[in-house]
């Protein structure tokens, strides 16, 4: 997905195509947030701390 943004951003016209690439970015961000939330959970339940 990251590589797709790199390649297509070079010729993406403003409009739907660019919007789709930004949407790809959002999906990537959500994935990161979910992973972080999981690691937070794990830390909390193991050590009783939130950071």
């Amino acid at each position: 997905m990251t590589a797709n943004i790199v390649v297509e951003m070079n010729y993406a016209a403003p409009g739907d195509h660019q919007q789709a690439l930004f949407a790809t970015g959002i999906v990537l961000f959500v994935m990161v947030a979910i992973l972080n939330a999981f690691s937070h959970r794990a830390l909390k339940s193991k050590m009783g701390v939130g950071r």
Partner: protein
Amino acid sequence: MSTAVRGRIFSADTTDKAASLLLWVSAGVTVLILLSIIGTIIYRGIGVIDLSFLLDSPRMSGAEGGIFPAIIGTLCLVGVAILTAAPIGIGAAVYLTEYAPDNAVTQIITFGVECLAGIPSIVLGLFGYALLVVYFGFGFSILSGGLALMFMILPWTVRASEEAIKTVPSGLKDGSLALGATKWQTIRNVVIPGDLPGITTGLILGTGKAIGETAVIMYTAGSSLLLPESIFEPVRALPYHLYILASEGISDDMAYGSAAVLLGMVLLINLGAVAIQRYYQTRSGLRH
């Protein structure tokens, strides 16, 4: 399996030796990977590196000449990123460790810092393009690229500063407060000077990350091969120059030469971080 763990087939002594060997191999493989990368890059790149390669401008889109503008461009971008990330990062770290109450808002801020650290660099590049280049109208410039890089290293700066602040003995802080100093005076005169080595190391490691970053600056700093005259002009950073040389098949030799120079810069920076840490540790008596 369980018999082996209980030591019925293999004695405890044997498993102990096997474990030591495996752990040693893991450590060895890590170093081996690093050495083979450095070795390959230097072996293939050293041929084109000389003084004129470092100090000349590129000719024929980089197929000939040197990489001086790209080196300068990299230094400018990293400079902007560090100078903006340092005050914000240290400020956020002081707030999180000294001021922030233990509540939901603080948790959200901490979580936000972690998420920011995890965002793929190309997404930061896209965001930088939309916000800095287009919306703020900075165009492709050192300013846009530097600020986008700042977004990337900011969470690491916050993290490093936080860890550094936690190592300042609370006795020192309590002493300062007991003498009647205000919270801000304590922070300015006791906390910040006390964790300066940690902050400096964190910033230097941030520099190391920023210097090799390609995706963030791709759509923010532009790809001009000219020497910049102000922070509003585009530059091409060294990693992006290397990317273009390699991906457009301009010159493999020049690409490996650029890679070797880039690697050298990163290694120098990391050595600098180690040296600073040692210096402070020796001075404070932690290391003899």
